[in-house]
């Protein structure tokens, strides 16, 4: 495990000095998506629940930042993060209370429907949310330090390290959660709901807690995304954005812990290059993704694991 973590972390630490600022921005987007996917996968990979409504928490986090800027004139990133945790927790308790009573397709459809309610609110109440124009988000202060004048320098350097730090904290937290007795109980529920109930696990309560943790992680990702994007608009609340979170997780491999992280970064790069390459980027991206899923049914990390075990056997 450490053999992977140390080099990966070292690469991420030196990245802004090696790659150009535009690349660093893409990587920042990737790390933010990774936090969202990590949260999402607590439900899919560990609890066995496929949510199609995680855009609600991501968008909830981003709009929290926008509202704190617009109505409370705040500029501190730490306050933004705290606010988004609170809002994502409230949203996920409300959504989860309804959704965890169901599983499988019913759960997916309910999460989808509820997230669309949030989207239509952002869309219709334009005097509060700015409608399709969205709300502008200026560069925040990081740990009380005012942002530098050069916005590109700020985002590709200071903000990158800030995101990297939050990402590292989130990875450690999620690692502990999925390896805790609670995480084991979630996996038991995923594998066999009835048996889990008959060893004394109250499955609805556990699903709700997993749902809330998952929502908070994704909300934090949304809050980090807002200043980077500079704008919170209803796009991130639409169900297709939920679909992207599902996709990056499946692409990386939802059966492994690092799968969603790898998938999120890979997906972000694929999307960035597809957009730059052609105006028909969705077509190109779609094709690439279909081929990837057919070629790597267990995701990137599943394929890597198979390859590693093959090398081990032959070596």
């Amino acid at each position, binding site marked *: 495990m450490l053999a992977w973590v140390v080099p990966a972390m070292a690469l991420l630490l030196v990245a802004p000095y090696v790659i150009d600022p535009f690349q660093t921005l893409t990587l920042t987007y990737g790390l933010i998506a990774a936090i969202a996917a990590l949260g999402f996968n607590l439900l899919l990979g560990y609890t066995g629940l496929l949510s199609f409504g995680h855009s609600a928490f991501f968008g909830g986090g981003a709009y929290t930042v926008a509202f704190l800027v617009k109505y409370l004139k705040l500029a501190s990133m730490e306050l933004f993060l705290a606010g988004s945790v609170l809002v994502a927790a409230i949203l996920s308790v409300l959504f989860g209370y309804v959704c965890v009573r169901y599983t499988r397709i019913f759960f997916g459809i309910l999460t989808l429907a509820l997230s669309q309610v949030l989207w239509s609110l952002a869309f219709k109440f334009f005097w509060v949310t700015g409608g399709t124009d969205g709300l502008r988000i200026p560069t925040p202060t990081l740990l009380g330090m005012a942002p530098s004048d050069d916005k590109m320098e700020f985002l590709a350097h200071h903000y990158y390290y800030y995101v990297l730090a939050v990402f590292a904290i989130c990875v450690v937290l999620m690692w*502990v959660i999925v390896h*805790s*007795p609670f995480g*084991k109980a979630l996996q038991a529920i995923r594998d*066999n709901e*009835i048996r889990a109930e*008959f060893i004394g696990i109250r499955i609805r309560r556990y699903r709700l807690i997993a749902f809330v943790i998952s929502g908070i992680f994704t909300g934090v990702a949304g809050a980090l995304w807002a200043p980077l994007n500079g704008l919170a608009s209803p796009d991130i609340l639409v169900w297709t954005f939920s679909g992207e979170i599902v996709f990056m997780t499946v692409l990386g491999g939802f059966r492994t812990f690092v799968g969603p992280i790898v998938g999120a970064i890979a997906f972000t790069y694929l999307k960035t290059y597809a957009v730059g390459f052609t105006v028909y980027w969705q077509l190109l991206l779609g094709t690439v993704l279909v081929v990837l899923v057919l070629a790597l049914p267990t995701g990137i990390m599943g394929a890597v694991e198979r390859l590693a075990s093959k090398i081990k056997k032959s070596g």
Partner: protein
Amino acid sequence: MDLLVTQALAKSFGDNRAVDRVDFTVRQGEVLALIGSNGAGKTSLVNLVSGLLRPDSGQIIFENNDVTRQSPYERIKAGIARSFQIVNLFDQLSCADNIALSIFSREDKTLKLATLASRDHAVWAEAHDVLRRFGLERAAMLLAGTISHGERKLLDVAVAYALKPKLLFLDEPTSGVSTREKAPIMDIVTSIVRAGGITVVIIEHDMDIVFRYSERIVVMHQGAILADGTPDQIRQNDAVTTTLIGTHPTGESAYGSTGSAGR
């Protein structure tokens, strides 16, 4: 002393009276066999007592407390555990994990999310001890979905046993296992539960197993209790031989009478 008493317990599925006003008693410390042909209501009775099904009417009294309206969770905490006829395990977790989950649950530790499960050495030591007793230590690190059927049947019982229940229901612990493997499984199971002072109700089809391992036998037929007694009493009970083996010329006349032999 009576550990479990059901009073006029009833459950119907449509027109089918699966459990028909059953008065069923389990005494402290005994190994009781619940037998009967397919569809006699044995599993339904266990489902009612364990909380998987809600009864239409009647009472379930466990240790002098009415548990009829309690959730499965509350009944497990009170000391009622069960295994399943069709193996029910956490297939993508290791055998050790399967057992450890029962122990974590028993000790109310499953809500801990800020500590690593692997750090709780006492739990893992106990999990390995349980696996050793059931002869499964070799499989500790294997995924539960990958071991043999016989081992899965044992693990299924071990998962319920690790809850340290007062009353344990085993729903066909040897179903789908070859005749040669049945006795070793039953030897392991009965010796472990006896040593643990656990009261056991075994649902079983194999008559050799039933007569060899149980102290008392309750026979169910068409949702009601047909007979209740020691293995010797049951062996000599005409109604039982008629309905279970089906040699009685008039058939129907033997039905309807409930619980006579052992009382």
